[in-house]
């Protein structure tokens, strides 16, 4: 899983939905010079039209659009498509950002962001989409010193096996499934504990603490299990 250095999935088509012309200029320059093909839309209507016609591989969606709420766009797209959506949000749109993620957006970036962050998120989202399409998960997940044998449910740190409780393992498994992508707290609670636990975020925090104690070299400075403040967690792959 160390394809961070390899070139992006060649010539992927990206739909940029952003009303600010300067941000669009910046995205255009950055993406085209990284071998992505580009579609651009300044409004939600335009975006939905372009999406229906061109079937892009990924959408970069600004939440603050002039005509339609970015959340609404996410909802409409998710009704019939699983194309990865990368949400761009301003600082005051934190709630919208989480709502968009819970609604099915794949990841987010808070403005201002760097080109590096943007490209990393795009790579992860495209890769994840590709893997989901192939539907065959790698039986062994390797990330630095961490090795998880998903078939035999065994976890190794630097080749020595460690023991995880069932919930800890499940938590790790969900994060591996979404490796590199942010996973919201609600989503994790739902997938690990079940739908009735969505208000019990302290469970998640306590178990994440346990998991870090076992996996991280320095649990206070996690290298793999990264907290996305206010949003959720991410298994860092790059």
């Amino acid at each position, binding site marked *: 899983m160390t394809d961070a250095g390899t070139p992006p999935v060649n010539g992927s088509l990206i739909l940029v939905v952003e009303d600010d012309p300067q941000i669009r200029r910046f995205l255009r320059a950055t993406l085209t010079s990284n071998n992505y093909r580009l579609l651009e839309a300044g409004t939600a209507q335009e975006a939905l039209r372009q999406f229906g016609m061109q079937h892009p591989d990924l959408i970069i969606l600004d939440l603050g659009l002039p005509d339609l709420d970015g959340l609404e766009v996410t909802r409409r797209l998710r009704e019939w498509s699983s194309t990865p959506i990368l949400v761009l949000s301003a600082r005051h749109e934190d709630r919208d950002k989480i709502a968009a993620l819970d609604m099915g957006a794949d990841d987010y970036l808070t403005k201002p962001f760097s080109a590096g962050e943007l490209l990393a998120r795009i790579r992860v989202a495209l890769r994840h989409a590709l893997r989901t399409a192939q539907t065959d998960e790698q039986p062994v997940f390797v990330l630095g010193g961490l090795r998880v044998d998903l078939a035999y449910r065994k976890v190794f740190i630097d080749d020595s096996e460690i023991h995880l*409780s069932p919930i800890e393992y499940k938590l790790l498994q969900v994060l591996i499934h979404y490796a590199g992508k942010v996973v919201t707290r609600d989503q994790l609670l739902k997938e690990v504990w079940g739908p009735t636990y969505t208000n*019990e975020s*302290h469970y998640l925090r*306590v178990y994440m*603490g346990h998991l*870090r104690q076992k996996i991280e070299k320095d649990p*206070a*400075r*996690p290298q793999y299990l990264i907290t996305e*403040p206010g949003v959720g967690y991410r298994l860092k792959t790059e």
Partner: protein
Amino acid sequence: MLGPNGKNRTGLETGRDVLTLHQFPEHDLTSNRNFKRSSSWQAYGIATLIAALSTLIVGVMATRFSPVNLIMIYLGGVVIAAAYCGRGPSILTAVLSVLTFDFFFTAPFLTFTVYDSQYLITFAMILIVAVTISSMTAQIRRQADAAHEREWRTANLYSLSRELASSVGTETLIQIAAQHIKNIFDAQIIILLADANGQLVMKISATPTLPMNPHEQGVAQWVYANSQPAGLGTATLPGSQGLYLPLVTSRGAAGVLGVYPNQVAFSPEQFDMLDALTNQTALAIERSRLAEETERSRVQIETERLRNSLLSSVSHDLRTPLASITGAVSSLLENEYTLTPESRRELAQVAWEEATRLNRLVGNLLEITRLESGGVHVEKEWQPLEEVIGITLNRLEAQTNTHPITLNLPLDLPLVPIDGVLIEQVLVNLLENAVKYTPVGSPIDLLASFEDHEVKVTVADRGSGLAPGDETRIFDKFYRALPSLSGGAGLGLTISRGIIEAHGGRIWAQNRPSGGAMFGFTLPLEGDPPEVDLEND
């Protein structure tokens, strides 16, 4: 004080003067009056006694002295009675003296008949002496009483104005005035002051439980509107329960003073006195209001000044990174072909760093505005502090690799009810400060402990510590301990304080005994932490 004797007047003497004035108790006047009223029978008794005593002395002397001298004894008694017992009793003494002298000591003895008509002159003279002397004494006494009363009034006015002058705030002033007037007049006092809309509002009430009845309220309103006294004992609405006097200032009535006498209605003197005290009170209220207005406009000017200086400070802080960005990027654009790759990279790096700094500044400004306007919503959730610390250290990885951070977190740290995003910001601010104000390589300690229903977090460095006075000033908006250090706008600690206080905790700064600065904050553990059913491994 400034006269020729000025130098000799010491504070002590002044104090004694005041003491004397204070000790002229209100009762003086009332007790005098009481004495006059209740003791008239006593005076007549004493007059009779004097006559009897004179008769006794004369009886002893009768055989050896001539009647002319005996008359003198009687005359003496009459003079004494006139001087001390008043007119009526002295006339009684005179009449009794004449009768007993006539009865016992003139021929024919033991009858009221008088042979010698000369005695009629004697009797007349005794009566004239009695009336004259008693009238004169009465007049002198009246004058003395008047002087006494004037003195008492002056004393009261003086003591009221003195107390009013030494007090601040309208509320206090009217309290003092009401208490004074109440003591002097043996009456219940109310004070109503007009609010901004000209509506009278009860400030001092006689019976706290009872509201003012509508009629009395109407009288008071009339008094306020017309700036004239009305009610009990006046020509206007005399049927009221109370007497109402306007508190007249140079800008019209400020309110109304109401007096409900406990006993009889007031005499004209008392009315004058009341008027004088009311004027004093009104003057004091006006003075106090003027002072309050002055203070308000002073605060306003100060606020304006502060806002201007903040504005100029903010625009400076915003322009500096903008200047770097503009410079760096324009150089990249204009010198596209002449720049070496290194300088191109350097310029891009400058633009990136300054943009990041600008972003943080704007974020801080927004945050402080939100904190100050009460717009920050603290979303507390029970969570492990370790996680927030982890996020912080991750976020600061690039900045803190020059300063080794030692963590000291107890393993049994409980869950804390906090807004993780906000507390992370506090930790980032404290750690960034520690990095910024200490030399490269200097270690930073991050400690947490748990005691007495609160979690305490400390960020301690080994730098040069805080200058005296900075312990509190450092939390002030736009305060920078070292203005020469570029970077922040002096908002980080102000924001941190706002966040910690919004959590119900405390934040402070101090110097470490072993050198360096130390910032601490507490987070209270309010309510019951949620149960976490741990699975059995």
